[in-house]
């Protein structure tokens, strides 16, 4: 490229050094792509011109597997999608099949499900907070978050024997009764947890560097969020008060009081605040729920062999990361004809390019962190 300058009337030819765009491959092996996400970045210096997500490194064909398993057999597989929020996945699937069967879990089962799912939401958000802070360079919060998450996992372990991929629920209700100190354990956790959230907030919320790194970064307007189908805390941080727990109550959510936090600017900082508040609200729900767990059976009469009548059902729940939907088609046999999952991570990830354009590489890391994706769910 040449540029004409004038020097005393006579033009001089000068050559402007060419600055090429560079392509940077982030991932699939990278410390902050949360698993095996691969992002192809087009960079101008450090500024991101465009991003291209390349996914599928963790594809296991979960939906196809469903077609060759009975309804009960497929239930443990859904835990392996969003493996940091397995309980929520299980809840969504069990309720979908119950809808297909026309059955309903008994009240006791529904309350226990609600408690465990809310604990799982806290655990999932804790993991998000730890890794998000780590991405932005704060080394310490991750250990505090894991310390509290550990308490939740211990409750899961005591309840069903597994910590991560719990398979906590069964179609029609629960497999296990709650153990003896279940209420005390949950109560103790909730009592401790309130102070712990404040502790994380003292480390981060007012921190100048944290605010500088997150405020105004990765802005997603309400209109864009709706157009892209973004759900969950990301949508709420963009200003829309939409939460399936309130909009289409499932499990026992209609019995409890809780607020839906929303943000104003739709930036990374707002998403951080929204998720922090959601943890407090989940704690509130847990505290209300353990006050009064109804007695009674924990399993509806659904029979040993499940043969739903032919038909189709779409059911969605508010998973920690957004709307987790299952679309199940039955052909009247013991195996589903088709199960399609609407994973929140996969759809929220579509907003990455919108948020990352014009940002710096360091911002991109913050934006991937704030999207809160789990690749097991994105790739399925």
């Amino acid at each position, binding site marked *: 490229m040449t540029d004409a300058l004038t020097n005393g009337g006579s033009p001089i030819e000068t050559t402007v050094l060419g600055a090429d765009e560079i392509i940077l491959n982030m991932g699939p092996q990278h410390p902050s792509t949360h698993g095996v996400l691969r992002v192809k970045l087009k960079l101008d210096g*450090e500024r*991101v011109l*465009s991003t291209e997500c390349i996914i599928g490194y963790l594809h296991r064909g979960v939906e196809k597997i469903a077609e060759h398993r009975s309804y009960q057999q497929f239930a443990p597989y859904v835990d392996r999608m969003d493996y940091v929020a397995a309980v929520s996945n299980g809840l969504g699937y069990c309720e979908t099949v119950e809808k297909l069967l026309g059955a309903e879990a008994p009240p006791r089962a529904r309350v226990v499900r609600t408690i465990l799912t809310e604990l799982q939401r806290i655990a999932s958000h804790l993991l998000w907070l730890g890794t998000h802070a780590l991405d932005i360079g*704060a*080394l310490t919060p991750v250990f505090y978050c894991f310390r509290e998450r550990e308490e939740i996992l211990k409750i899961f372990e005591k309840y069903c024997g597994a910590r991560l991929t719990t398979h906590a629920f069964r179609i029609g209700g629960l497999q296990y009764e709650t153990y003896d100190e279940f209420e005390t354990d949950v109560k103790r956790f909730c009592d401790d947890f309130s102070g712990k959230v404040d502790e994380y907030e003292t480390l981060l919320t007012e921190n100048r*560097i944290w605010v500088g790194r997150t405020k105004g970064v990765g802005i997603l307007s309400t209109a864009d969020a709706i157009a892209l189908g973004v759900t969950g805390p990301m949508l709420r941080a963009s200003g829309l008060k939409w939460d399936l727990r309130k909009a289409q109550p499932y499990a026992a959510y209609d019995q409890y009081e809780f607020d839906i936090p929303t943000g104003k600017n739709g930036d990374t900082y707002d998403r951080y605040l929204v998720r922090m508040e959601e943890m407090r609200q989940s704690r509130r729900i847990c505290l209300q729920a353990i006050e009064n767990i109804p007695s009674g059976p924990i399993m509806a009469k659904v029979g040993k062999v499940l043969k739903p009548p032919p038909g189709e059902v779409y059911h969605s729940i508010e998973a920690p990361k957004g709307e987790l939907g299952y679309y199940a088609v039955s052909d009247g046999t013991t195996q589903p004809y088709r199960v399609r999952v609407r994973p929140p991570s996969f759809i929220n990830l579509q907003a990455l390019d919108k948020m990352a354009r014009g940002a*710096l*590489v360091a911002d991109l890391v913050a934006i991937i962190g704030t999207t809160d994706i789990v690749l097991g769910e994105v790739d399925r």
Partner: protein
Amino acid sequence: MSHLIPPAIAPFVVPVICGIVLVAVFPLLAGYIVLLERKLMADMQARLGPMRVGPHGLLQPIADAFKLLIKEDIIPQGADKFMFYVAPLISVTMALVAFSAMPFGPVFQIADLNVGLLFIVAVGSLGIYGIVLGGWSSNSHYSLIGALRSAAQLVSYETAAGLALVSALLLAGSLSMKDIVQAQADQGVWFIFVVPIGFFIYFVSSIAETNRAPFDLPEAESELVAGYMTEYSGFRWALYFLAEYANMVIVAGIATTLFLGGWLRPFPGNHQHLIGTPFELLDALPSLLFLGVALYCLSLVPRQPVQVQKLFMAGVAGACVLLAAVMALTLFPPFDAAREGVHGAFWFMAKVGGYVYTFLWVRFTFPRYRFDQLMRLGWRFLIPLALVNVLVVSASIVVQQNWEWKHPVVSTVVTTAIMLAVAFWLAEEGAKPEPAPQPADGE
């Protein structure tokens, strides 16, 4: 003994011995700083840190060094081999050379240059060549971005650090490291109490200069994997690591010498005696400290699970007793000559340790700056502040000298108040919203 050494080489004997000791001991010391860092980090993060190799992980640095030595030395395809080989050497050599003018006490110094400070700062900044060349020669985008960030960062923050040093130099009136400490002894005050803002500026800039968090952008692991050393493995990688820790000790040494009174004992005017002995309490403090550590180690001995670990722990306690004995021995009159050297080295290392500890503490607490924020902090806050600081400090010196106005406390308070006002004003200005960055064009 001195008659055994030919006069021609006599002046070189002490420096050569010091040099050999430094080169031989420093890598080990750096290893233990890493262990200290990991232990401190663990302590702040509610965990234990290395516990496996040796009692309480005390042999971890040696195991790590051994592991790095036997690792495969991978050279990426398309790398500039020669530069790839040489780059870590440049970094580590420059870092070690900078030690040659560092006074670890009145005796242990390889060369007392009359431009000592300039020399250390100059050689220390040459180490950046190692980083830039290493990043460039790796033929990797991550390394390249890391190297460029490092270069830009060093250029910006050297300026602020240099200006901060000038404020202390004005007070000392010399560039020789020894004379700077002597000036603080003569004036009876460490310069941190005269120019606290200068020390603050140097502290922040030195974190940035050594690429430590929250300014560790050149190696930001969550963004650039490992920045300029992404492609390095094995011992070459260890050399970069060594250089980083050496640089940390160097900046801590500079700060100690200029602001914290170098090897001087705190409270030189305090002559309170240790009860029942003719020794001053503060002189006896190092011995007591080492004795305390020895006792703590002894108390840990029975808790070690294996016989070997018990013996090792007892050995550590023994070493501490030995150090305490050496420290105590020099308090007796026949060893007067050695006292200054040994105790000076102790106080110097203690201050360096305190400075490095603060470095580590900051690292575990704060998130990382973004590159543009880092640059803004440097150019819009620290450099103007450092410039004003130099002006204000020189003005106060001129006032004191020309008008014979002898109220050092008042002048310190006044200059610091002025500087704080400037700092707050600059911070306010900096907090004003930036014009939005040019949005990138669509595809």
